[in-house]
């Protein structure tokens, strides 16, 4: 990769684009000076060292390269890099200590209303916001490592914050310790792929009013409240991992006011709630694995016309939770490890329907303290009798063709 880059640089010099080198023992010592010297299409190559130059503004179409991860230090006062030109490339820097907690949301790297900006292979450490795309188009944010050490929501910004943008690609970044790992608001036609978002204070991914996006093969682990996807339609959520999002009001995936979306091939493991749905319509939840969650799914009464098919429910404390008695969602051919039916015709589908909502789940919904009694002999008796003669749980909360064996997912 690097070799290719150098070859590219070598040839680009023939195209009358210059390389301006910045470093302690180079002719140009300051980055700001180099930018002022640069012409459109030039490359600025910054050598190893610590650069404390306050706010650096890139206002020309240039390639801004770091060699050996030169440090850009914001000294907790400044926004470090402001990109105010199209098609800028920022690569190979270590950006640290942006200013924090002020009205203008100081960032490590911020893009102002531009397109085709590439931000890749950077290390961002201890910044208020990490990368901020404001009104950007066709930008690529790739292979960045973004770390912060936030302790409270108010004291820290988001890792990758995208607002009112379109056609973004967020690929293979690692984010931890921010408020939200990745934040999308009014962002459309974008893809979030192969990112790892862990240990953020609020959400691993926070997603609002952002239609027609996809997020694929990401890992969201141990975030304060998991992942929230809200007020959005046409989202595709494929092959993601939602793990160990624990706590009161913590969810693997929190869906609110979502329509016409797909949740396919994800794994929800060890979350307090795997998926929590409110006001969610026409969603297809398919081929997911729900494993060792407190509640695999909580479907509130405001959810209509969702299809839950071909999922594996294994080792969850409760398979389902709900706050209402009206059920307008479909469950079909899922594997439930708590299913105790039989399969006389040996077609792999159980002959009696499965009721995924247990009496105790309803009791706990009404009175959370009752959790204290879980797995006691008396509760087991109550649950069993409810299974035989449903009286409190809605009897159309049902999977008519539960599978006998788990799906190979």
């Amino acid at each position, binding site marked *: 990769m690097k070799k290719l880059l150098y070859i590219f640089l070598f040839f680009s010099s023939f195209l009358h684009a210059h390389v301006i080198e910045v470093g302690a023992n180079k002719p140009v010592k300051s980055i700001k000076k180099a930018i002022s010297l640069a012409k459109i299409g030039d490359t600025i190559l910054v050598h190893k060292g610590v650069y404390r130059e306050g706010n650096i503004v890139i206002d020309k179409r240039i390639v801004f390269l770091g060699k050996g991860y030169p440090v850009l230090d914001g000294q907790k006062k400044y926004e470090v890099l402001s990109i105010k030109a199209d098609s800028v490339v920022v690569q190979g820097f270590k950006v640290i200590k942006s200013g924090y907690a002020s009205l203008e949301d100081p960032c490590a790297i911020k893009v102002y209303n531009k397109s085709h900006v590439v931000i890749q292979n950077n290390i961002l450490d201890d910044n208020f916001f990490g990368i901020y795309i404001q009104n950007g188009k066709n930008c690529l944010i790739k292979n960045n490592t973004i770390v912060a050490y936030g302790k409270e929501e108010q004291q820290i910004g988001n890792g990758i914050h995208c607002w009112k943008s379109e056609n973004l690609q967020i690929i293979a970044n690692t984010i931890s310790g921010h408020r939200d790992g990745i934040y999308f608001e009014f962002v459309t036609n974008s893809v979030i792929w192969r990112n790892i978002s862990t240990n953020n204070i609020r959400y691993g991914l926070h997603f609002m009013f952002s239609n027609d996006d996809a997020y694929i093969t990401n890992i969201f682990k141990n975030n304060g409240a998991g992942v929230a996807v809200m007020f959005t339609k046409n989202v595709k959520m494929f092959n993601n991992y939602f793990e160990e999002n624990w706590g009161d009001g913590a969810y693997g995936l929190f869906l609110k006011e979502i329509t016409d979306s797909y949740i396919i091939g994800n794994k929800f493991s060890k*979350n307090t709630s795997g998926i929590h749905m409110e006001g969610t319509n026409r969603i297809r939840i398919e081929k997911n694995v729900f494993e060792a969650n*407190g*509640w695999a799914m909580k479907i509130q009464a405001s959810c209509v016309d969702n299809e839950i098919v071909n999922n594996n429910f294994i080792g969850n*404390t409760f398979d389902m939770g709900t706050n209402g008695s009206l059920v307008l969602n479909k469950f079909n051919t899922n594997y439930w490890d708590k299913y105790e039916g039989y399969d006389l015709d040996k077609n792999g589908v159980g002959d009696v329907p499965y009721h995924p909502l247990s009496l105790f789940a309803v009791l706990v919904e009404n009175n959370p303290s009752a*959790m204290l*009694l*879980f797995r006691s002999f008396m*509760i087991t008796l109550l649950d069993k009798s409810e299974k035989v003669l449903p009286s409190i749980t809605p009897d159309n909360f049902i999977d008519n063709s539960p599978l006998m064996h788990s799906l190979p997912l």
Partner: protein
Amino acid sequence: MNRIIKIIFLDILKNKIILAYTLILAILSWSSFGLEDNSAKGLLTILNIILFTVPLVSILFATIYLYNSTEFIELLLSQPIKRKKIWLSLFLGLSLAMVLAFFIGAGIPLLINAPDSVGIMMLIIGCLITLVFVALAFLSSILTRDKAKGIGIAIMGWLYFALLFDGIILYLLFQFSDYPIEKAMIVVTAFSPIDLARIQILLHLDVSAMMGYTGAIFKDFFGTSLGLLLSFSLLCLWIIIPFFISLIKFKNKDL
């Protein structure tokens, strides 16, 4: 003392009921672990064994054994042995045999199929629950000379801890659901050894659910090392206090 413990221990091991108990535990555990490729179902089965079967068998078997040993106790009393020693030997012999039965029946499959913190936790708690109900058996058998009455007391005791106590808690929870009674409930659980045991296992088995809602309150209390220490000490008190009361009564008993 060792000689008497050995005599009692060997006598119980020859007992067919204890063999059947071990065998049934083993069949239940092995079959439920073998049923599926994950250990969840097996763990649940063993949880139910610990909360249901172990207390029942421990208290019933120990009570009946004590009544059947009246002659033996009389024989020992005419010998130069301290009363305390006789009673303690009986307790230790019985406990040892019951714990061994639990260990062979449920503990070994547990250690083989779930050799993690949950498995070890369940093993320790199963042994403690065995001891608690053996101790309660000593108490119930010293309360009355009448064998039928004594067994009745034992069964009532078991029924109370296994079923009625939780019923009362459920009733209280719904009666006072408008008040913040979670903390009070933590205190109340100390009054039932089965609940203490159950919550400790729950915190390991259903950790994801216990992290949410009020579960977090219990987790914050019982899940800390202090809470763990406290519940184990409470379980130990549930062994020591009933046995100690029975010991005092035995010391002053006329035979």
